[in-house]
């Protein structure tokens, strides 16, 4: 019936204290604990749920990066994905990799695998871009259901309840489509011991961006990375008049 591609990103674990590299070129990643992006976990869970409800036949987990990302793909396999694709990107290309390059890769894979749905996390917790899903849909000229907090398949269409600033918006889009998972879409399952063992036997295919005809050249250059400025202590005032005076002196009002 149909196949779903799920993107999973290997990011620094949310519990780790991030430190900026001494040369301010980025954050320290060596020897730091990494895990699957929490929104990607939600995306995987949704895809596996759709498969369990028999709306889709196969879930393919995809990740882009160096060899280490296969750990993340294995976790997705242990959660119930059928097979994985590791798009190998390393070195300078990996450091410069951003939403546009990933979107191009996913668009190419979606066509190659004849996917009916591409489900991604709404954003990654390391760069907070919130662009990959939208760009992928644009490159494919597919409809998009982003910030999904509820997904229902209705024949050839998908009903998506989206979390937006004003509340919730319900849309109906045709497949094939791109969805991005928001926080309340579901609660990701733990991999069970038997599934972790089964995951070992599942296949992870290996390929390079060039095999998909994607050029990894980045149009973005990171100049400098700094920690946010230390928060200064506040000032206490006695009366409202004092407050107004201070705000005026400050130039705020």
């Amino acid at each position, binding site marked *: 019936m149909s196949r779903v591609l799920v993107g999973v990103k290997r990011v620094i*674990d*949310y*519990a*780790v204290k991030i430190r900026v590299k001494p040369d301010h070129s980025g954050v320290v990643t060596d*020897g730091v*604990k990494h*895990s699957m992006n*929490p929104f990607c*976990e939600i995306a995987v*869970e949704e895809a596996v749920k759709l498969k369990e409800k028999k709306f889709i036949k196969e879930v393919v987990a995809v990740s882009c990066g160096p060899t280490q990302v296969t*750990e993340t793909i*294995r*976790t997705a396999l*242990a959660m119930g994905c059928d097979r994985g694709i590791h798009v190998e990107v390393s070195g300078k290309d990996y450091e410069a990799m951003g939403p546009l390059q990933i979107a191009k890769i996913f668009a190419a894979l979606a066509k190659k695998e004849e996917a009916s749905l591409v489900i991604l996390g709404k954003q990654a*917790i390391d760069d907070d871009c919130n662009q990959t899903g939208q760009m992928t849909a644009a490159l494919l000229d597919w409809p998009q259901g982003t910030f999904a907090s509820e997904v229902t398949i209705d024949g050839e269409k998908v009903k998506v309840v989206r*979390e*937006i*600033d*004003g*509340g*919730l918006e319900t849309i109906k889009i045709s497949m094939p489509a791109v969805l991005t998972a*928001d*926080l*309340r879409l*579901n*609660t*990701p*399952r*733990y*991999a*069970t*011991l*038997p599934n*972790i*063992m089964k*995951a*070992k036997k599942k296949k992870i295919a290996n390929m390079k961006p060039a095999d998909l005809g994607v050029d990894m050249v980045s149009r973005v250059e990171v100049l400098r990375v700094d920690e946010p400025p230390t928060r200064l202590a506040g000032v206490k005032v006695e009366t409202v008049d004092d407050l107004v005076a201070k705000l005026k002196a400050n130039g705020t009002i």
Partner: protein
Amino acid sequence: MDSDGGKGGIPSHILRRHCKRSRLSKKLFTSEDHFSTVLKNRFKFDTNLQIAAHGLSDEQKEFQKMAFDFAAHEMSPHMAEWDEKEIFPVETMRKAAQLGFGGIYVQPEVGGSGLSRLDTSVIFEALSTGCVSTTAYISIHNMCNWMIDTFGNTEQREKFCPELCTMDKFASYCLTEPGSGSDAASLLTTAKLEGDHYILNGSKAFISGGGDTDVYIVMCRTGGKGPKGISCVVVEKDTPGLSFGKKEKKVGWNSQPTRAVILEDCHVPVTNRLGQEGQGFNIAMRGLNGGRINIASCSLGAAHACVQLARDHLLVRKQFGEALSNNQFLQFKLAEMATKLVASRLLLREAAVALQESRSDAVSLCSMAKLFVTDECFNICNQALQMHGGYGYLKDYAVQQFVRDIRVHQILEGTNEVMRMIIARSLLSESG
């Protein structure tokens, strides 16, 4: 937000950021209480995972990661409450069983996960960081499940193991009596054969889960004195003649009830006997070899957590104008704690592998591991408490619960004195 079998614990800083959006989301998360419930006492102890994961296979690392996640999300937030209110967390343990933790080294054809002793040790070590007492009970349950799986016949395995693996039923291990602890082979509970039933008379002491569990593995005397007269029978809850003493009040292990198990003319079908008559003591001891690895693994997890708690405290607490972490004595103490932790872990994992491979030195190694690891890890946790100063003594801080919970590991499953007996006997009997 909270689980129907999943994680539910998206960290609060991510929750806050993504809730800024809509007024509706604000409605869903109005109270700070929600955030505080998610974060309160929720420790994720796996940032030092690199060390704990050394030498493990990719698969073992996945087990470990999953167990740490489960401990952090499902156990850690409740550990203090379970201790204070003496709650036996049946629902949480059943969630754990759904993931395969009910019969970790039990065979898959009766519902187990079929993993190795090393896999098991890694898993219990990780789970312990969430709650030692609950993990220790889960390990006892696993031990009983394995005993039936290994020594039971097909009918017994098919009758008991599947429900133990799912934790639809819970198990207890009944060897110790008021008059026989270390001298276990001198136990007095009798089992007289009458037709197709044994009539059991006697009492067992300090039984973990006693009164709240469903399946009791009871070591009893069917023959003459000493170990060769002991058999092992499975007594099911609600069997007439099976009753329980009062719930004991303990220093730790409060998330599992401990009671005396009383047998008064308790009729148990002969078909519930595991193995042969006279094989019971051997079955009990073989169960304990694995049990010792498991208990030591629980101590290890507690020590792992405490080293991290101590480290975090030293970085934050200031005295004499600087953080405690600048104090050389404390730095050295922390280094010693970490060193002993790693040494303990290596000995324990080696013993687990030896047991898995049925090596000739397995029994000795398991005893050495239990002795060394439970002693060293208690010292580590105790030292961590000391480093917390007065705060270490408050129940608001988890370190005291780790100390109280693992203290008993030096006593049960064979006291550390008995461990020395076993090791000495093995050394002195070696030829040459």
